[in-house]
């Protein structure tokens, strides 16, 4: 049995490692088309820094360097994505599954009776299911983070490509270098996590703002409402000075309603609040 188990482990791991979800890339794509080797890069930078080099030539050099760096960063990012989606995850599933299978088999072998052996095997299968669930969760998290990384990379990419139309006085190689660093950083897990957190925070703030701007309350118009309304509109005509005093008192009482109309005509103004506002205004109750 031990010999069978030892044979089983590499088979399981090898089978899992083969599942990457990505086809093999052709050798010529994408880095070899636009990437510059170190010698060419050094020569181009020297030419760029030469004061005799024309602005148009500098622009061409700058853009060649930009496309070379973009190409290399893209290739590294693609490799990174493949590793995230295959190696750790699949091996993790494979390792969990294998460990649990071995544990189950070990328990089976060690047990004396058939009943105990079946129970141990069953525990192994249940444990394996839990391991797969955990890895599916990991997979979904990775997918979300990769989506965030790609979104942020697209934003920086658009900025860089737009800037390639500018002349070197407006967009020098140094500025391009900074943008390329941002492009690289946009493809990191740390940056993706920051982006997800920021996005969640902004959504929460937007939701709070919407709640703060809309108020709905059932109709409520009482004798206390009439007293406040009489002060606001003596003889049926609006008095702006009195309106200001009512609003000041509403602020002191910290009423839910912002408008006087809502305060005196709906449950957004409670009777105790209306009574407090009347006291604040110095009106007889």
């Amino acid at each position, binding site marked *: 049995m031990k010999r069978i188990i030892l044979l089983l482990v590499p088979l399981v791991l090898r089978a899992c490692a083969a599942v990457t979800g990505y086809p093999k890339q052709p050798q010529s794509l994408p880095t070899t088309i636009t990437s510059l080797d170190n010698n060419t890069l050094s020569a181009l930078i020297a030419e760029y820094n030469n004061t005799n080099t024309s602005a148009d030539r500098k622009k061409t050099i700058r853009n060649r360097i930009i496309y070379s760096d973009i190409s290399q960063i893209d290739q590294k990012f693609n490799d990174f994505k493949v590793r995230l989606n295959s190696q750790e995850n699949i091996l993790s599933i494979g390792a969990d599954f294998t460990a649990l299978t071995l544990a189950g088999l070990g328990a089976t072998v060690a047990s004396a009776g058939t009943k105990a052996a079946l129970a141990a095997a069953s525990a192994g299968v249940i444990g394996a299911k839990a391991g797969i669930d955990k890895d599916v969760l990991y997979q979904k998290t990775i997918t979300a983070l990769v989506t965030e990384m790609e979104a942020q990379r697209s934003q920086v990419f658009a900025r860089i490509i737009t800037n390639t139309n500018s002349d070197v006085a407006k967009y020098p190689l140094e500025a391009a270098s900074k943008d390329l660093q941002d492009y690289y950083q946009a493809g990191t897990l740390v940056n993706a996590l920051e982006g997800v957190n920021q996005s969640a925070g902004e959504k929460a703030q937007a939701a709070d703002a919407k709640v703060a*701007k*809309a*108020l709905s*309350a*059932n109709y409520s118009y009482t004798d206390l409402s009439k007293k406040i309304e009489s002060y606001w509109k003596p003889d049926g005509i609006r008095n702006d000075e009195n*309106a200001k005093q009512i609003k000041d008192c509403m602020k002191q009482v910290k009423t839910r309603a*912002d*408008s006087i109309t*809502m305060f005196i*005509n709906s449950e957004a103004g409670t009777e105790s609040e209306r009574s407090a506002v009347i006291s604040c205004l110095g009106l007889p109750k």
Partner: protein
Amino acid sequence: MARQDTIPNVPNADVPRVKKDFEDEGATVVVTPNPDGTTSKIVATFP
């Protein structure tokens, strides 16, 4: 920043007064009669 106040069930007899109150405070008012035939919904939007 716009703000919106809604009173969903104002008795129809009181609708003109409440509408005028909102308008006196500078709101744009929309009155929608409810299916019960006796009340209306008043939505006031403040600029």
